């Protein structure tokens, strides 16, 4: 009978193995798709800004009919709702590339100030919707006159 010499493995060896596995795992995790450069948000993406008298809400909604857009203001909540319709072709069409999305969308946002609901105006130009919401009189700063007693 042959005797095979059994050598005890170096305990440090298995540690280096674990270390290698861990660094592989970290490598996989950190190579996840980079979000940098992509701003993926709800549709439509909006910009809210304000000046002294108005609050402005802009939204990039290219290629939509105004009749398919619905903008509503209830108290201080603005809702933009609409539908972007796909191309209606007379003949059969074959898509070679499709990156633009179609479908219905709805978004509600809380406005930063109280607005005068009656005076809200909206315009759609070059694919950008702009809603101008004049601030309510009560939201504007009021000068308090101090009376001499």
């Amino acid at each position: 009978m042959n005797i095979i010499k059994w050598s005890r493995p170096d305990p440090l060896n298995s540690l280096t193995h674990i270390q290698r596995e861990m660094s592989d795992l970290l490598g996989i995790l950190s190579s996840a798709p980079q979000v940098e450069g992509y701003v993926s948000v709800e549709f439509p993406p909006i910009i809210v800004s304000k000046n002294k008298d108005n609050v402005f809400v802009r939204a990039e909604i290219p290629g939509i009919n105004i009749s398919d857009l619905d903008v509503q203001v209830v108290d201080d909540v603005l809702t933009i709702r609409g539908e972007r319709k796909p191309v209606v072709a007379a003949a059969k069409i074959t898509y070679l590339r499709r990156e633009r999305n179609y479908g219905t969308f709805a978004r509600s946002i809380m406005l930063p100030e109280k607005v005068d609901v009656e005076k809200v105006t909206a315009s759609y130009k070059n694919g950008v919707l702009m809603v101008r919401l004049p601030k309510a009189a009560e939201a504007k700063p009021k000068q308090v006159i101090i009376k001499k007693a």
Partner: protein
Amino acid sequence: METKEHPSVGKKKITPDKCVVTGKGDWYFPLSDIYETTDNFTILIDMPGVTAENVTIDMRDNELVINGEVSQEAYTDEEVIHNEYNIGHYHRHFAISDVINRDKIEAKMADGVLSLILPKAEHIKPRKIEVRAE
């Protein structure tokens, strides 16, 4: 394709390591659709904020180069509270093959969407050959 609820959007910035970015402002990669019919190809490009005058379409060698510039004069006295998208110019180019009749490319800009119609060249259109009975 089924219609989706809340279609998502992404704006991809063109970084200087991929190409040479010149001029003021940021440049973005607009989303586009390409489809084919029996007579032509159509390219639709989303470029919100771009007017028809600010679109330039060039045909260089085999490339169709599309640039759309946005004006950024707004926001002068406004304070931005919430920002979800970046405003910038758009650039995209497509390689065009011989099947396109280059003299007859048409472009139209409406509501922030540029549509390019590229007619197919006569020689690649399907032709029916009549069979005569002798």
